[in-house]
């Protein structure tokens, strides 16, 4: 049956519900005296200029990109890792080839300077 997932689902709901209750409770207990100055955006004491818009560098995207590629490839390796004890040397060699391709991706990203923060 689905009882594993049911338990995980119940747990997720409860894990969301408990902090929600605590936050609501604290909201009831705490004072509520809003004023204009209090709710201004905090920027070290200066008034904020313009909208909250900063041009992010594309470097952030590149990191996310490399991360996605590695994540997807590694997750594909997990069934292989589970089956590892039943596999022969040849099957392991194929997985090593897979990891080598991953390594080539890392080397490429490194050589192209995609992993440089500045």
């Amino acid at each position, binding site marked *: 049956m689905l009882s594993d997932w049911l338990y995980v689902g119940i747990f997720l709901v409860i*894990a969301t519900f408990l902090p929600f209750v605590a936050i609501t409770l604290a909201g009831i207990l705490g004072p509520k005296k809003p004023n204009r100055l209090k709710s201004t955006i905090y920027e070290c004491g200066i008034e904020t200029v313009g909208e909250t818009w900063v041009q992010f560098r594309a470097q952030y995207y590149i990191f996310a990109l490399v991360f996605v590629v590695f994540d997807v490839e590694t997750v594909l390796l997990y069934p292989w890792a589970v089956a590892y004890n039943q596999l022969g040397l040849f099957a392991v060699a194929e997985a090593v080839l897979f990891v080598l391709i991953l390594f080539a991706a890392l080397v490429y990203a490194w050589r192209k300077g995609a992993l440089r923060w500045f």
Partner: protein
Amino acid sequence: MGFIQFLIDPVTFIARWLQMLLAGWGVPAGWTQFILFVLGAGALGTGALMFTIALIWFERKLIGRFQDRFGPNRVGPWGIFQPFADMGKIFTKEYITPDGADPVPFYLAPILVVMSVVSLWAVIPFTLTVVGVELNVGVLYIIGIGGIGELAIIFAGWGSNNKYAMLAAFRALAQLISYEVPMVIALLVPVMFAGKMGLNDIARAQDIWYIVLCPLAALIFFITSTAENGRTPFDLLEADSELVAGFNIEYSGLRFGFYYVADFLHAFTIGLLFAILFLGGWRGPFVEQVPVLGVFYLFAKAGIVYFIGNWMRASLPRFRIDQMMDINWKILTPTALVLVMLTAVVDKLIASELLYLQAAVLFVLNVVLLVVIGKVIDWYWAHRPRPKVVATPRPVARYERSSAQSHPGAGQ
């Protein structure tokens, strides 16, 4: 008889008793299971959050001793009621919602952050009979739940309508996603040895602790999970002594406090996960006969890891962000990839009947790999590209040799 049964395995005993009680009331079996699930999950979640209170006191005391201070010592004996006083304060603080905040993500973020940590406790085997759920994809569950914590950080940054929060959220996100890569790769190694992905199965399979079979994977897991937690030396996503704060700058009251609740609880949860994956979890002498001992073993092992994490937190300065990214992408990730390949091949080449020989070979392999990588890093550090020196440094002030050195303070 019943009392002894209760003593050696309390949770199973209570569960069975409740089951009988509900069956006696005429509740159908399906609903009984459902009610037990809800009760168990509620108890575990609440327990995790209550445990945080103890952790806050313990960590403050510990860091105090590391830094040659007393830590909290005013409220109650050894200051043990300090967290309750803090709780009372933080519960009665005002919530401030910044102008132009996006309400749903702004309110959801602290809840999600706590949820992403508490949810990890669902799959942790506390002893061989007490486990929330024996999910057969436990390792991936840990990684996937970590993703929810990342989303919470985006929500906090976006919802606050603050430039600093936004920037900090994106830096934090870059750090978290980067450190997820070597973690995912390194976790392949214990899964490979155990042939299972469930955490309880991995604990059960450790006749030899996996820290002996793959110390390097354990090291990588420890470093990356410290970085995922955002603790020193990787705490620059919220460098509270240098920047204003991180993505949580606009939060106040308990909403702000929840980021710290999540942080403290995550630090200990890392200890638990490390103990389960690499230190044998609940395994120890007599645990088969008396399952409740497993809880003590697990928490003792987790406590050691937690202590080392705090030791690091108290001793090390923080990295710069480019150094941090370099450590991840140029040291940890290649190391993890090489480790997975070498372990896979070498473990297949040795006959697996000779268990101790295999362990010894793998241990030596890991140590050799560690030394080689250390040498490579040393070599690279000696030959790293450095900016060209165009002028010799000239001191701004220069003391006179004769007076300053022979009679310090007498030159006036």
